C-alpha cells in the first residue's frame, strides 16, 4: 500500500522489474544514481502509459505517486488502465550455463563495491516490456547484507561495468533482510551464486546471530514459495510485489525476538518443504541461500558490530531486548496493517510471521534512510571494508611496531617525549648516534684542545678535580682569550657585559695596552704597590672584561689562600726557570693582545712592534715574575670574599690547579713565543735582561 509510494525510486524500480524492458530499467537506474529521479519516473511512466500496462494496485499507486512527485504531465492515474492484482510473476528463470560471459564479468568486478554482498546470476526466459531484447536475458541479483551502501548506486555501478565488459545484464540489488517480490523470488530460486566469499569471510556472522541463521533460510523459503506458491507464500503471493516492500518496513519491528524464533521454528518446518523444492531446482541454490541467510544474519551483526560490542558481549540478552523492542513495534505495525489492508496485510503479516528475516528486511528498508544517517553515502562503503580491515590492522600493527617503533610512537607521544631524549640515542643508534656522535665528538675536541694540559694534571688528581679545574681554568685562560675570540662568549659569560663594554670601550684600550705591553709599566709600578694598586688599577682597565669574568668565575677569588702558598712557592720556582714563564703568565695578556689590537688598536699593533711598546714590554717582562705574584695577590684580594664559600679541599685543589696551569701556560707560551710573533721573540730577549 503505502510502501511503494513512500519507498524510494529504487524500490519502485525493483517493483517494476519485469514490467518494462530491461534497457529502460537500466537507464532509469542510471538516472536515479545520477539523482535525476524525476526523469527516470517520467520515462518509466511514459512507457507504461504508452503500453497501457495493467499493474497491481500497489504498483500502480506507487507509480502514480512517484509521477505526481516528479511533476510529469503524463497523468498516469487516468491514463493507466485500472489495476488488477497479479497472482504471481509470469516470468521464468533458469540457471546460467557454464562460462556465462555475464558471470565472468561479474567475477571481474572489483571486490570492494560488493563487500558484504552476495551476487547471483540467473537467466530470464520470458520477455519484459513491449520492446524486449533477446532472450534469455541475464539478471544479476545482488543481495546486500549490510546497509552501508546505496542500493541504487551499486546497481548502476555494476550494470555499467557489465555493459562495458560487453555483457549487459539487468542488475537487481535487493536487501538481503527484506522480503522479495515474486519476480526476484523466482530469479533467486533459479539463480547461481557467483560471489559469496565477501560475506562468508566476515567473522561477525556466526557470533552475532548464530541462532537467527535458521531464520534466514526461512526468508529464502519465502522467496521460494512464491515460485511454488506454498500455503504461506500464497498469502504473500496475492500481493507479491507491493506487499513485500511495504511489509518489510512494518515487519522489521515485528521481528520480535520471541516471535521470530517461533516463526523460525515454523519457518524451519516450512523451510524443509521449501528447501526440498529449492534443492531440486539447483544444488547450488540452497547453498547460496543458506549462505545468504547466514549473511543476512551477519549483516545486522555488521551494523551492530561497530556499535555493539555490547551485542557480542551479551548477545542473547541484547538480542532479547532488541527483539522485544521489535516485537512491540511489530505488533502495532501488524495491527495497523490489518486495519488498513486486509488482504495484503494479512499476506504481509503471514510473511512476517513466516519470515523471521523479514524483520531485518524491514530494518533494511528502514535502514535505507538509516545508512545515510549513520553511514553517509561515502562512509558506509568503507565502513564494512574498514571493519574488515580493522581486525586486519591490529595484527599488522602488532607485527609492525617492532619495525616501525619510531613512526608509530608518534601516536604515543607521551611516553616517548619523556623517554625520547634518553631512549632515542640508544633506540635509534643509526640516526641518533650519528647526530649525537658528531655532537659529542666536536664538543670534546674543542674542549680537549685547551684542556690537554689540564687533563694531564687531572690524571693525577682524579676525576673530582677536573670539573673544578675546568671551571677555574677556563676562567683564567678562556675568559681573556675566549672572550676576545668570540664576543658571544663574553656576552654569555658576563651578564653585565653589554652595559659595561659600551662605556668601557676606552678602558678596553688600556687593558689592551697592558696586554700588548704584557702587564706593562703600570704593572711594574703596581708591582711595588701590588696588593694596593693592583686592585684599583685592574679595576679600571679590567672592569670591562677581566673583572666581570673574574667575578663571575669566582675561581680567581678562590685561590687566594691557596695561592698564597703556591705564590710563595712560585716565586721560588718562578725565578729559576720562569722569569721567562713569568713573562708567559703575562701571556694570557699577550694572547688577547693580538685580538684586542685587531679590534681596537690596529695602530697599536705597529706600536708594540715599535720601540715604545718594546720598552714597555721589556719593562713588563722584568716585572713579570712580580706580576705573577701580583696577579695572585689580586686574586687573593678578590678571593677572600669567595674564600669563605669554598672549602679547604677546594681551595687546595684550586691552588694546585692554578699552579699547574701556570706551568702549562708557561710551556705553551714558550711554544707560542718561539712559534709566535717576532715581537714576542723580542720580548723574550728582554725578560732575561730584567731577570738578569
Amino acid at each position, binding site marked *: 500500500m503505502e510502501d511503494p509510494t513512500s519507498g524510494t525510486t529504487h524500490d519502485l524500480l525493483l517493483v517494476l522489474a519485469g514490467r518494462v524492458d530491461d534497457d529502460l530499467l537500466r537507464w532509469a537506474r542510471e538516472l536515479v544514481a545520477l539523482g535525476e529521479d524525476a526523469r527516470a519516473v*517520467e520515462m518509466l511512466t*511514459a512507457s507504461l502509459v*504508452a503500453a497501457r500496462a495493467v499493474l497491481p494496485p500497489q504498483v500502480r499507486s506507487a507509480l502514480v505517486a512517484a509521477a505526481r512527485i516528479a511533476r510529469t504531465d503524463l497523468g498516469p492515474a487516468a491514463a493507466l488502465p485500472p489495476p488488477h492484482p497479479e497472482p504471481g510473476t509470469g516470468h521464468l528463470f533458469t540457471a546460467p550455463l557454464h562460462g556465462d560471459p555475464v558471470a565472468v564479468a561479474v567475477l571481474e568486478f572489483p571486490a570492494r563495491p560488493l563487500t558484504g554482498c552476495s551476487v547471483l546470476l540467473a537467466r530470464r526466459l520470458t520477455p519484459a516490456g513491449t*520492446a524486449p*531484447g*533477446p532472450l534469455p536475458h541475464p539478471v544479476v541479483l545482488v543481495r546486500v547484507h549490510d546497509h552501508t551502501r546505496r542500493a541504487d548506486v551499486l546497481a548502476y555501478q555494476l550494470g555499467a561495468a557489465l555493459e562495458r565488459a560487453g555483457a549487459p545484464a539487468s542488475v537487481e540489488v535487493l536487501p538481503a533482510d527484506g522480503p522479495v517480490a515474486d519476480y526476484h523470488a523466482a530469479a533467486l530460486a533459479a539463480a547461481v551464486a557467483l560471489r559469496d566469499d565477501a560475506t562468508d569471510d566476515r567473522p561477525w556472522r556466526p557470533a552475532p546471530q548464530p541462532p537467527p541463521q535458521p531464520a534466514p533460510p526461512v526468508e529464502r523459503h519465502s522467496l521460494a514459495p512464491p515460485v511454488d506458491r506454498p500455503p504461506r507464500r500464497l498469502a504473500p503471493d496475492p500481493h507479491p510485489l507491493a506487499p513485500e516492500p511495504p511489509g518489510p518496513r512494518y515487519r522489521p519491528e515485528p521481528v520480535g525476538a520471541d516471535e521470530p524464533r517461533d516463526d523460525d521454528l515454523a519457518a524451519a518446518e516450512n523451510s524443509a518443504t521449501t528447501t526440498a523444492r529449492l534443492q531440486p531446482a539447483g544444488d547450488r541454490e540452497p547453498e547460496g541461500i543458506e549462505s545468504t541467510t547466514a549473511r543476512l544474519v551477519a549483516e545486522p551483526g555488521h551494523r551492530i558490530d561497530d556499535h555493539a560490542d555490547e551485542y557480542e558481549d551479551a548477545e542473547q540478552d541484547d538480542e532479547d531486548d532488541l527483539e522485544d523492542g521489535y516485537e512491540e513495534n511489530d505488533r502495532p505495525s501488524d495491527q495497523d496493517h490489518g486495519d488498513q489492508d486486509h488482504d495484503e496485510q494479512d499476506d504481509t503479516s503471514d510473511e512476517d510471521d513466516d519470515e523471521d528475516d523479514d524483520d531485518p528486511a524491514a530494518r533494511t528498508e528502514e535502514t535505507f534512510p538509516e545508512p545515510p544517517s549513520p553511514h553517509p553515502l561515502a562512509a558506509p562503503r568503507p565502513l564494512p571494508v574498514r571493519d574488515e580491515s580493522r581486525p586486519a590492522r591490529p595484527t599488522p600493527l602488532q607485527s609492525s611496531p617492532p619495525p616501525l617503533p619510531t613512526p608509530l610512537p608518534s601516536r604515543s607521544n607521551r611516553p616517548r617525549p619523556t623517554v625520547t631524549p634518553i631512549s632515542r640515542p640508544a633506540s635509534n643508534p643509526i640516526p641518533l648516534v650519528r647526530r649525537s656522535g658528531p655532537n659529542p665528538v666536536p664538543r670534546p675536541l674543542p674542549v680537549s684542545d685547551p684542556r690537554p694540559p689540564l687533563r694531564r694534571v687531572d690524571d693525577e688528581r682524579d676525576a673530582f678535580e677536573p670539573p673544578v679545574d675546568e671551571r677555574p681554568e677556563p676562567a683564567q685562560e678562556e675568559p681573556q682569550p675566549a672572550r676576545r675570540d668570540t664576543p658571544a662568549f663574553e656576552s654569555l659569560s658576563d651578564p653585565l657585559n653589554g652595559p659595561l663594554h659600551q662605556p668601557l670601550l676606552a678602558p678596553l684600550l688600556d687593558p689592551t695596552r697592558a696586554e700588548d705591553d704584557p702587564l706593562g709599566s703600570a704593572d711594574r709600578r703596581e708591582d711595588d704597590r701590588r696588593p694596593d694598586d693592583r686592585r684599583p688599577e685592574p679595576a679600571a682597565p679590567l672592569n670591562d672584561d677581566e673583572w666581570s669574568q673574574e667575578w663571575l668565575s669566582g675561581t680567581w677569588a678562590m685561590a687566594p689562600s691557596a695561592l698564597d702558598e703556591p705564590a710563595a712557592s712560585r716565586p721560588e720556582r718562578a725565578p729559576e726557570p720562569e722569569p721567562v714563564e713569568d713573562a708567559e703568565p703575562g701571556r694570557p695578556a699577550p694572547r688577547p693582545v693580538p685580538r684586542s689590537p685587531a679590534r681596537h688598536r690596529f695602530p697599536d699593533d705597529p706600536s708594540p712592534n715599535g720601540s715604545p711598546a718594546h720598552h714597555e714590554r721589556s719593562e713588563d717582562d722584568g716585572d713579570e715574575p712580580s706580576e705573577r705574584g701580583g696577579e695572585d695577590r689580586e686574586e687573593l684580594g678578590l678571593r677572600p670574599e669567595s674564600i669563605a664559600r669554598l672549602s679547604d679541599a677546594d681551595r687546595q685543589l684550586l691552588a694546585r690547579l692554578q699552579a699547574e696551569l701556570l706551568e702549562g701556560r708557561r710551556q705553551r707560551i714558550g711554544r707560542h713565543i718561539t712559534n709566535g710573533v717576532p715581537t714576542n721573540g723580542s720580548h723574550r730577549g728582554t725578560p732575561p735582561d730584567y731577570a738578569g
Partner: protein
Amino acid sequence: MSTAHAASHELLLRLAGRLPDELLWRMRDWLADDGREVLASTLPRELLRHRVGVTDADRELLEAAVGSTHPLLDAVLPATGPPPTRAAFEPGDGAVDTAALAVLAVVRGHPGCVEVRQSWRDSQRIVLVLGAERPWELAGTLQRVMRAHGDRTPCVEVLPPHGERSPYHQAAIIGSRPLWRSATALVGA
C-alpha cells in the same frame, strides 16, 4: 489521429541524428503504441533538455503533434535550418543477417513499402524504409524486431518515397546498400 500521428512521425524523422538513439527509438515506439499523448507530454521537455532547436516547419509539426497549448512549447529553441549532420554512413559488406531477414519479412507484408536499404553508422545499423502506409506503425514494429535481435537502440527510418529529406537521411541513403526493392515499384519504374 492520423494527422497528428503523421505529424509526430515526420517530426521524429526530422529529429533523427539530433536526439539520442535510445530516446528516439523509444518515442517512436510510444507513437507506434498509440501513445501520442505520452509523446506530446515528453517531447518538448526532451527538446529543451537536449537543446534541440526547431525550424519553423518543425515547429508547425510540433504544434500539430503536441498541441499548441503545451506550456513548454514556446521555450523550445528556434533554428534557422536543419543542422548539417556529422554522422558518417557506410553501406557495409552487403551480408544479410537474421535481423535483416526479419526486417524484410515484416516490410514485405506492409502496404506501400517500396524499398529497404541498410547502412551502418559506426556499429549502429540504420534501416531505411522508403514508402509505407502508417509509417509510424511500421517503424515501431521494425524497431521491436531489431531489438529482439539484439539491437538495443534500433534506428529505423521509415521515409516517404518522395520528397525532401533531411541532411541526415540524405547521407544515410548515400551511404546505404539496398536490401529489398518492391516488384511493383520496379514494374512501375
